[in-house]
């Protein structure tokens, strides 16, 4: 398995999760990991797996093929992008598996997935993370 950046992920009993930082002094979270705390300005950040489920905080749909450094497949399809609030941790930005704005709404339950993003020169699929509407509560 190849991902866009292995340092973003960690394995948990529930499946792959994003890995962030948590400040041991004030409890602030970041994604991805970083050394300094943006909230209290300290430097006691520790790695922490982030929740795999959350709620959609805002969203849009990317309607045109971005310029480089975008490295997506040659055939462009609009893709959803959103911020997902992970309870009591942080709001993370991610691609969404849903690209129809009429099927997205602020507050909808979302779950983390690893999804194929592109194929590298050796033919190996490269995976990235995305949030999908949580099936049991989806419309």
């Amino acid at each position, binding site marked *: 398995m190849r991902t866009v950046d292995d340092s973003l992920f960690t394995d948990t009993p529930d499946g792959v999760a994003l890995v962030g930082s948590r400040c041991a002094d004030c409890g602030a979270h970041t994604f991805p990991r970083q050394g300094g705390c943006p909230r209290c300005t300290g430097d006691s950040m520790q790695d922490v797996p982030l929740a795999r489920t959350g709620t959609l905080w*805002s969203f849009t*749909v990317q309607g045109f093929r971005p310029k480089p450094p975008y490295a997506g497949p040659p055939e462009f399809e609009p893709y959803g992008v959103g911020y997902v609030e992970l309870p*009591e*941790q*942080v709001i993370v*930005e991610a*691609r969404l598996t849903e690209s129809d704005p009429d099927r997205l709404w602020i507050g909808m339950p979302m779950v983390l997935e690893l999804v194929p993003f592109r194929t590298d020169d050796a033919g190996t699929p490269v995976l990235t993370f995305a949030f999908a509407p949580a099936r049991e509560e989806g419309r």
Partner: protein
Amino acid sequence: MSADVAIVGIGIHPFGRTPGVSGRRQAVVAARAALADAGVGFADLQFAFGGSHSAGDADTLVSELGLTSLPFINVANGCATGGSALISAYAAIMSGLHDLGIVIGFDKHERGAFNTDPAEHGIGAWYGETGLMLTTQFFGMKIQRYLHRTGMDAGVLTKIAAKAFRNGALNPKAWRRTPLSEAEIAASPMISHPLTQYMYCSPAEGAVALVLCRADRAHHYTDRPVFLRGATLRSRRYGSFEVFSPWLAIERADSPTVDAARAVFEQAGIGPDEVDVAQLQDTESGAELMHMAETGLCAHGEQDGLIAEGATEIGGRLPVNTDGGCIANGEPIGASGLRQVYENVLQLRGDAGAHQVPGGPRVGFTHVYGAPGISACTLLTR
């Protein structure tokens, strides 16, 4: 509070696309126009601050403007480059260090949306590779959240863009000079839901220069000085929602626009209710909507009513982006903030011609916003 710094000369190179003319050349045109307006020569100046994002180092302009040994300091602060140059000039004069100087902002960008290297912002390469490093997405998501929060209808976005093109048509220095109907704007390609192509500004070209002096010497240069009563710059706080953010804090804080605007009104001793004309960052029409309230010019959720009654039109009680804003002028990053000040000087002098605010405006406000979450504001009076 007494006014201590005056703007006594203004110059502009028309915005838009000028094939075959470099950004530096456009800066020289603007600088010579500002010098002529103030009735001074480059050799009379004691200092210069300037910058561009993509068109070269401002301090190299001396090879064309004159090798006079003046200190020329380059400013590189993204969309706040012009504002930061102006703050620097303000401080140089207020400190008593200098009496007379110039600020110059210019740029020339390639067509299409800006592409930015995540590494320059301390973000991993994956963020750009997977298609998240786009300012256009940020504005789509910020306005989506804002409309959800305030309950305003997305239809207001087409009205704001239509006003921009209407005002641009009245401004001979603007790039987009053809009015567009709300229907044409709504039907243009969807860039980043709910924002369509004609709701966005485009990267462009242009240059602006301003000659500034000690206020008590302003009448040596002009009989219609405009006073710079305040100039502020703020960066983001923990909990604000800014462009190029792989994550946001759950606890919410005010944007840098709120902080910069509050600070400039305090610095000037002027209230938001006294503003006669405002130039607000309209990277897209949602930005103008949000910035109207973030700057304190109105309350959150009040904007759609104001727009419906025509308050933000040139003849309204709160004219906004009277020169067509970024939507009609395009955005040459280094020049954009100074264009707003140029427009307000025209308005306060009564020289804005077809886009002049009636009734002799006395107080002009400007506001820029940009990556990585910065805002700069100014207040001018006559």
